[in-house]
């Protein structure tokens, strides 16, 4: 393992992308080969923390809404093509008063999951404003994915799936609807991000580019109603 890690490190130093790789992994945490920073964004109460907890612990935080304070940093190691990928996930507070601290860490993120709530129109309308902010503060080549969360709440739905798709197309970002409650597409969202980042980081010149859109489309159909 360690030799593989060393070779990876070398390779990326050459490519000038060494920032993707942490030089050492913390002894307490799980072993990993490569690490990426992912940030969850979106209005307050769209379910960012719930999506993260569903992905990380496979649980759903029902009951009371508890607002995230500031930004909350968590790790999860996933397997991507036999490589241990550590996702360092920033869960952010949606409230305005935390924007300044969120802004300070935008540029560190290699991927952004932008969430809205399908039962809350303003949270969808704000997506454009979020994308403007992203263009202002984030890295130029950041991976963005749009997620319409709370897809289990069919009765309360006010944002059609097509509307989400249309907006995503306009900005050229992948899109899917998720449910932290049922788990639908949550793991897929993070895995697609992990795959995309891993391919970007380890891609050989002759290797075909990873198509995140195609991957999502192919997986989404398989997932059905019970998640992956």
């Amino acid at each position, binding site marked *: 393992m360690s030799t593989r890690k060393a070779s990876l490190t070398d390779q990326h130093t050459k490519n000038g992308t060494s920032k993707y790789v942490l030089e050492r992994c*913390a*002894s*307490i945490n799980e072993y990993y080969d490569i690490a990426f920073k992912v940030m969850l964004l979106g209005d*307050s*109460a769209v379910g960012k*923390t719930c999506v993260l*907890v569903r992905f*990380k*612990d496979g649980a759903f*935080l029902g*009951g*009371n809404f*508890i*607002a*995230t*304070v*500031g*930004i*909350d*940093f*968590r790790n999860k190691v996933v397997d991507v093509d036999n490589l241990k990928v550590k996702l360092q996930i920033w*869960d952010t*507070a*949606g*409230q*305005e*008063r*935390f*924007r*300044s*601290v969120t802004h*300070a*860490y935008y540029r560190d993120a290699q991927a952004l999951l932008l969430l809205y709530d399908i039962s809350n129109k303003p949270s969808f309308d704000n997506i454009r404003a979020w994308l403007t902010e992203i263009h202002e503060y984030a890295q130029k080549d950041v991976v963005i994915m749009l997620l319409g969360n709370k897809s289990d709440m069919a009765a309360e739905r006010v944002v059609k799936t097509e509307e989400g798709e249309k907006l995503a197309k306009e900005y050229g970002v992948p899109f899917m609807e998720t449910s932290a409650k049922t788990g639908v597409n949550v793991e897929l969202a993070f895995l697609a991000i992990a795959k995309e980042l891993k391919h970007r980081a380890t891609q050989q010149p002759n290797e075909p580019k990873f198509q995140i859109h195609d991957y999502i489309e192919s997986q989404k159909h398989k997932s059905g109603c019970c998640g992956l």
Partner: protein
Amino acid sequence: MERDNHQGEAQGVHISEPPSESSLPADTLVTSLSLLGNHMFPDAGEKQEEINSTADKEEPAELQQSDVALKEHSVAEPHSNQLKRLETEEAETSVDLNNVSTQSTDREKEDTAMDNDQSDSGEFVVTMLAKAKLEEQGIGVKGRSSPLLEAGTQESPAFMSHRDEDVTAESWRQHRKHVFVLSEAGKPIYSRYGSEEALSSTMGVMMALVSFVQSGDNIIRSVYSEEHTVVFLQKGPLVLVCVSSSRQSEEQLRGELLYVYYQIVSMLTQASISRIFEHKKNYDLRRLLAGSEKILDGLLNLVDSDPSFLLAAVHCLPLACSLRDSLSQILQKAITPNLVFSILIAKNQLLTIVQEKTVIEDTRLEPADVHLLLNLIGASSAFQAGEIWTPICLPLFNPDCYFYAYISYLDPPECTVCLLLLSTDKEAFYAVAECKRKIEEAMAAQNSLSLIAKAQSYSVSQVGVSDLRHFMYKPFDVPDNYRQLTQFTSPEMEAPYTSEEEKMRLLDLYRFMHSRIHSTSRPLKLIYHVAERETLLAWVTSKFELYTCFSPLVTKACAITAITKLLRWIKKEEDRLFIRYPPKYSTTPNPSKSSRGGKSDQQDTTDNGYLSLL
């Protein structure tokens, strides 16, 4: 002596316009008051009827006729005279503990009697206020609090948010303590129970009261009714109102409102709040406070249940001196530039705190700031696996600038030991997180976590005094006091104070003792108070403040011997009970970067972008 005192009070009440002018505004105020009354205490009339039906019939008249109101005042006076006399005697004779032992034996009956008839001393003052006699002062010494009926039930429907409460329901009115925050434009910002929208007219009336009194170049401080005390606090563009049936003193309630204000400042900074309202008087501050209702709710629950707030002191977990020192050393070694405070907390109590040398030279860390930090941690600990990085202002340290707090639990999934690192640098997350790794490694090497897990609060039985049930001891003579955080020590509450109701009853007794000791008009040094089910003794000297609770059958001589023993025991144990010499480190190479008054802070408050949101 008491004559003087009453003249003083009368003057306080009389700061107002000449009588000829006062009649008209008084009517307006009466209308406002009755509007407020209709909503807040629609049952007040009925209650009064139960106790005194004639008073009930007179009430409308009193509100409008100043001479009746005066009479009402003079009726209340002899009673409070009596109280004052009692207090004076106590104050004069009880400075020395030894003297008291002989003299105050016979007074204990009086004290008890006094408590019994205090129950009807509550009603007055609404009438005085109606006379536009402003700048109220709580003259009546409030009696013992009635046992808390509501606190227990309040916790049971945990899933129903207080926001969803029906504000017209009787149960809403029955809450022991309401707290409202509104802007000067009368916009609701926070209500402890019920949604702010539903209460906007009530808050409008509150604001009408405040501005009416303000228009006469005066400040409304409180309104007393039979059942409730209404306390007002104006801080900058915010108005805070407490409506309490807890029988706490006005000063105590105002102190609690101040904590609420500080908690709001801790989230937004004072500078931002004033700037926002300078730009837009009717700004809806809830936009910026969204999501923080839980923090304010949590604060108010803590204020009710944790004596730290009453005593304005921090409670630290008893720990062997050597273990505390080794933990301090671990924190001292894990530093990074601009780190200013490293705090280790277990079971919501302090384990140790290390402070930056130059920062602490300028100012000291106030207990209230620590309380706000502890509340923030408690309120945001629903899922504790992560590492949190959040801006936080310490209002007493500097109300206008932000610190950045790194919060992480060291023992997931139990999450009892929490590390809190405060930096002045917004960008320092990774550096500070690295400090945590170092601390974690060092603690693992020394097996600190399992040692901390064994630490617990102590039982009063360890003191070895049979009649002593509970106490709170706050020393003033800690070494290095100038830089020291005020602390207090207190054992676990044990039988009979195990149920929530009983715990609250004991705290209410302590609050009563505290209000007598710290009374603005007649501060006392020593009170021996025989209550129905226990006997309390409170004693304040230049070296400490002490509240003790004994079984009801204790004799005065016994209590005094017990206190001597207790003080001796605390002296012997003080290295374990308190953080004796708070350690320091030096992390700011450039003192001007310290959080106090440096240019960098100014940026911190301005670049928050609130203004662009207006």
